[in-house]
């Protein structure tokens, strides 16, 4: 399709679990992220979805090297940055930025908005004091704030405004990739719409690529080009957004989509919610990690771990029986709740305005 910006292969993060006070010995490993591979193309949005604790945020931080990976490689524009340090690391940091989930914790309360937004430029030696001030005003305008906001402190803003400041900070060094770690989960629905649309706007203007972490499928449906579904530290399915929502191939993806509340009484009884809990990442089940909860699990699933297999163009799923699963009998394309549908309409209206 288009050229690859970020390529992640076999990325893993294992946390050792130690026991004992003085002579701590390792008693196990938490496999927070366990062999994740994906690519993000220039100017595209890849959404990473999954339930909480599946390793989405860890993956985001691994990509940015805020956490050191235990294994795997990260290629940025074809350059391996997995172990880069010093100047190379700084150069990489300029190209990748992050927007956080919690707008209240992600801004330093002691710095004015102007200082917060200008700091990445100072760190990378971009411009002088005057040009940076101009750039800050420009960025504030871009994210829908006003120049006089520059001298204020974060506590004087609402959550949505703070998130805009966080976005302005991320954009100040003109990155190519922005990792959005649940950027709207902490916001009100009406504010979510504004921020999501702002992100889409900025993407169109600057050709940004997003790695968009989310658990909200309504938001994902609105922003993503492609979607990767994570379960217990691994990717179980990746597909273009349309394909994923119409023909999900992995049972877990189906369960996720089916779990969206639907105002259709006909569906009652057709949707079987997943039983059980997510297994501990310290002791993942052998074979397919989903077999403990999968309604279609067979003997093979308990023994052999399925690899991601190509289903169709740009559509991969990690299930032994992806082709032979009984039809879900559900129309996932319209499978958004009334509320979610309303929100989508709201997004669209806000975008048109």
């Amino acid at each position, binding site marked *: 399709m288009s050229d690859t910006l970020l390529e992640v292969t076999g990325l893993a993060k294992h946390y050792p679990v130690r026991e004992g006070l003085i002579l701590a010995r390792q008693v196990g490993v938490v496999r927070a992220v366990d062999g994740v591979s994906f690519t993000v193309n220039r100017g595209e949005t890849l959404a990473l979805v999954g339930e909480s604790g599946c390793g989405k945020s860890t993956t985001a931080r691994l990509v940015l090297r805020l956490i050191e990976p235990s294994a795997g490689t990260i290629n940025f524009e074809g350059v391996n940055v997995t172990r880069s340090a010093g100047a190379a690391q700084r150069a990489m940091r300029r190209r990748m*930025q992050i927007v956080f989930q919690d707008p209240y914790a*992600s801004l*330093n309360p002691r710095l004015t908005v102007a200082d917060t937004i200008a700091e990445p430029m100072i760190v990378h030696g971009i411009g002088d004091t005057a040009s940076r001030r101009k750039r800050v005003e420009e960025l504030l305008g871009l994210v829908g704030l006003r120049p006089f906001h520059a001298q204020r*402190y974060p506590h004087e803003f609402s959550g949505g405004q703070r998130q805009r400041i966080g976005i302005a900070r991320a954009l100040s060094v003109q990155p190519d990739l922005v990792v959005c770690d649940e950027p709207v989960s902490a916001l009100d629905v009406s504010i979510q719409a504004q921020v999501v649309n702002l992100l889409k706007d900025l993407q169109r203007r600057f050709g940004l690529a997003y790695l968009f972490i989310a658990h909200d499928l309504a938001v994902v449906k609105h922003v993503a080009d492609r979607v990767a579904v994570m379960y217990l530290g691994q990717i179980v399915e990746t597909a273009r957004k349309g394909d994923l929502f119409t023909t999900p191939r992995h049972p877990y993806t189906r369960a996720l989509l089916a779990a969206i509340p639907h105002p259709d009484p006909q569906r009652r009884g057709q949707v079987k919610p997943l039983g059980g809990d997510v297994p501990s990442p310290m002791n993942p089940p052998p074979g397919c990690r989903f077999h403990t909860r999968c309604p279609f699990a067979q003997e093979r699933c308990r023994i052999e771990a399925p690899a991601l297999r190509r289903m169709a163009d740009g559509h991969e799923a990690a299930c032994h029986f992806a082709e032979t699963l009984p039809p879900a009998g559900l129309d996932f394309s319209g499978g958004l709740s009334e509320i979610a549908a309303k929100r989508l309409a709201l997004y669209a209206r806000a975008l048109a305005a």
Partner: protein
Amino acid sequence: MSAATDASEPIAPPRPGILSRLMREPGAAISLILVVLLVGAAVFAPLLAPTDPYDNDLALSMAPPGSDGLLLGADAQGRDMITRLLYGLRVSLMMGFAAVAIGGGIGALLGFLAAFYRRWLDGPIMRLVDIMLSFPAILVGLAIAAIFGPGIFSVVLALSVATVPLMARIVRGSAMVVMRLDFIEAARATGMSDARLIWRHLAPNCLSAIFVFATLRFGQVILLGSALSFLGLGAQPPVPELGAMASEGRNFLFFAPHIAVVPCVVIFIVVLAFNVLGDALRDALDPRLRV
């Protein structure tokens, strides 16, 4: 509020300076004035003092306050109490400032490093701090006085050493909380150096803890310094120092209580004023509490 206010026009709210914010609190205002007066008195002691602190007139020995034009009387050697107090304040404040600045500075740095390089430095630094904490300040003072000889230098050194572990613990605790916040990660994601990250993002958010503890410690340090002087390890007679003066007056408590009481009252005022000011400064420095 009025209709004339155009919403699109930025109305820059007047941002009161730190001084005017301090002066709004009556307690803070009084303590600030007191601290300014005390520090001013100490700095300008040579100009303000009516006599020389070492001038003695045994005829005036233990003269009660108000006699012979001596507002606060004279001590056992017949030296003017006001003069001695002014010079004593000078020595005591300098000792307190030096010990809190040196010990607090080193302690804060250790605390930041322990919290920031948690994996590598937290264990070693905190064990060092534990060892330092297990020595009583007086014992450290004795050891240092034995090495360097009694004097103000030894007292400052001993008080600094006694302040380092306390400050390190408090700063480490406060810094660990800050380290978990997203803006630290955001700062790291910009690729800035560790030094800049600590200085610009970590340290300012620990300031209130540092301020509160430093002012609290200032009072304690003055008291501790007085105790060391009392034991003969600090200021050597005839150098005036508030604690030393109080201990000299102890011998005459029944005949001339003012010799001991007056320096103690000054110590009390100094400690109280700095504590109240420290609290007020913490509130004034925190942008979240600005109204």
